[in-house]
């Protein structure tokens, strides 16, 4: 799964996701893409599941670009632990996604197949997504 190679600090604040995406909102590489319509934290596991679903449907033909990276550590306290005693330990890595952000792009694949693959990939994500195509 995706995660940073090294980080300066182990834990981060939770934060909130406000507003729409400012960058990464248009297709940059491929012909078809998957655009997030809701704000959410996408875990590395969810991203990997979506990536695999897309790759499987396209039969690994063409090229896929992942436009997000899970670089935010999320900590959790163990089960049945009383509150206090400091912040929990890092459990997973997430990518903060704002509405409008392109998550995946596909190129070199039949457009119909690419759309189907992206819909399958979107089903692995906890947010509503939309398939976008390049308008010349």
């Amino acid at each position: 799964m995706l995660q940073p190679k090294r980080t300066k600090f182990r834990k981060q604040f939770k934060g909130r996701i406000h507003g729409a995406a400012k960058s990464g909102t248009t297709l940059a590489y491929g012909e078809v893409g998957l655009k997030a319509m809701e704000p959410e934290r996408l875990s590395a596991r969810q991203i990997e599941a979506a990536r695999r679903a897309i790759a499987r449907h396209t039969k690994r033909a063409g090229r896929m670009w992942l436009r997000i990276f899970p670089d935010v550590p999320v900590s959790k306290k163990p089960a049945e632990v009383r509150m206090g005693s400091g912040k929990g330990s890092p459990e997973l890595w997430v990518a903060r996604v704002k509405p409008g952000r392109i998550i995946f792009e596909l190129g070199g694949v039949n457009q119909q197949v690419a759309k189907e693959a992206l819909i399958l990939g979107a089903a692995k994500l906890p947010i509503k997504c939309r398939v976008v195509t390049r308008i010349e």
Partner: protein
Amino acid sequence: MSELITLKATARPRAGKGAARQARRDGNVPAVIYGNQETPETINLEYNELWKQVLRGHFTSTAIELDVQGTKHIVLARDVQVDPVRDTPLHVDFQRVGKDGVIRVSIPMHFVNETQSPGLKRGGVLNIVRHDVEVYCPYDKIPRYFEISLEGMEIGRSIHISAVTMPEGVSPVIKNRDFTIATIAGALKGEEETTTTTAEAGAPAADAKGAAPAAGGKAAPAAAAGKAAPAAKAAPAAKPAAKK
């Protein structure tokens, strides 16, 4: 060659975000006409009419005849600002066509005969470096697209601008080098396997929640020595739960 798009517009006396937002609330799209050493004009376009033209394609590579309350302008859409979520137009920039009529415009590339490429048949991938190419051309002779045939293309071959046949009067903006438009790359083998290995390596760390959750080895920063202490605190805290 492209035909002229005709769009009707009304003058927008006030500039700025207040007037622009009011225009959007009224079902219009604010726009501006500039260039040709004349004063810029702020205008409003009818949303539905504009949206239909944008969806039809080739909007930024077709000359447009703008009718601003009787005054006609020959312009080129230089930029369409869109809503980041819904991709609907928010603002359009139009540039007046100069006296000589020659404009700088991006023309999309079309790749044909993909089935006749032995490289693609063997599992190669068409890696498009440039989806469109900037050219100089007369405004009334803008090509709709440039067609590139992939017939007989093997893996490792690349297509350069010199391979594109351009109509008379059309010349690329970049002239000093034969830049690449697309390449046929080999298929990426073992991509799935490598990812699977990474996932397996990460799985035990994620599952081992009980004893030392912080020892997931995920962050592993260089200065981890001092910071392991809070993680160690979590372990004693887990003891009462274990007793139950």
